[in-house]
């Protein structure tokens, strides 16, 4: 238990938040991907964060990404008979990506990332000041 643990904890959060940002980027990039490798529309993905206690008595808990899950909501049906992938009724299955949700997710991830960077910087400053103790 020392101030060095701050780096472990905060960097685990940085990893988790950057993965969340990656997944958001993937969702936004594929917001119009009507056909994936399996021939169906792209499904939005979300990361699931998990607390990993390191030292329960000391209150140290790291963050990890427990998994990436697919959004189970149905694909959006858009009427566009001229589309090559339209079904008999003229509907195209579009990805279930909610662009507004993804933008909110992106902002939240970036703010959390910034907070953790600031925490690490503060811990670094404190450690540097501690090094000069008694000089």
């Amino acid at each position, binding site marked *: 238990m020392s101030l060095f643990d*701050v780096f472990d904890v905060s960097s685990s959060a940085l990893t988790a938040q950057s993965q969340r940002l990656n997944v958001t980027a993937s969702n936004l990039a594929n917001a119009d991907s009507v056909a994936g490798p399996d021939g169906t529309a792209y499904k939005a993905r979300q990361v699931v964060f998990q607390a990993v206690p390191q030292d329960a008595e*000391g209150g140290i808990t790291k963050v990890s990404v427990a998994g990436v899950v697919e959004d189970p909501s149905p694909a959006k049906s858009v009427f566009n008979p001229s589309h090559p992938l339209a079904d008999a009724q003229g509907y195209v299955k579009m990805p279930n990506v909610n662009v507004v949700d993804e933008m909110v997710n992106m902002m939240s991830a970036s703010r959390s990332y910034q907070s953790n960077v600031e925490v690490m910087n503060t811990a670094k400053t404190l450690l540097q000041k501690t090094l000069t103790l008694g000089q």
Partner: protein
Amino acid sequence: MIDRLDQMLSFQADALKLRAQRQTVLATNIANADTPNYKAVDFDFAKALSSAQGSGSGDGAAAGGSIEMLYREPSQASLDGNSVDMDAERGQFADNTIKYEAALRVLNAQIKTMLAAVTG
């Protein structure tokens, strides 16, 4: 003689150790601000410091076992069961940073005083 020196510095040393520990705990809370069902924790600094002083050598603070972790009372409940209030945590973090530096400065001054006494 050394025992006296140790006695003089032990209070601020304990305080510094506990400040470092609290800094880690607050960093943990900030790191888990988006983790579902994570409950923010903290400890009573005054109580932890007095128990570290009571234990004598000052090892109580380092062991960490004697410190009772408490869950923070959430001011606004969130849907995912997370009880981290980012504003409160950031405030406490800044507060703890200043107090860590304060303990550091006092300790430094004490060391300087003793050095002055030694070197004359």
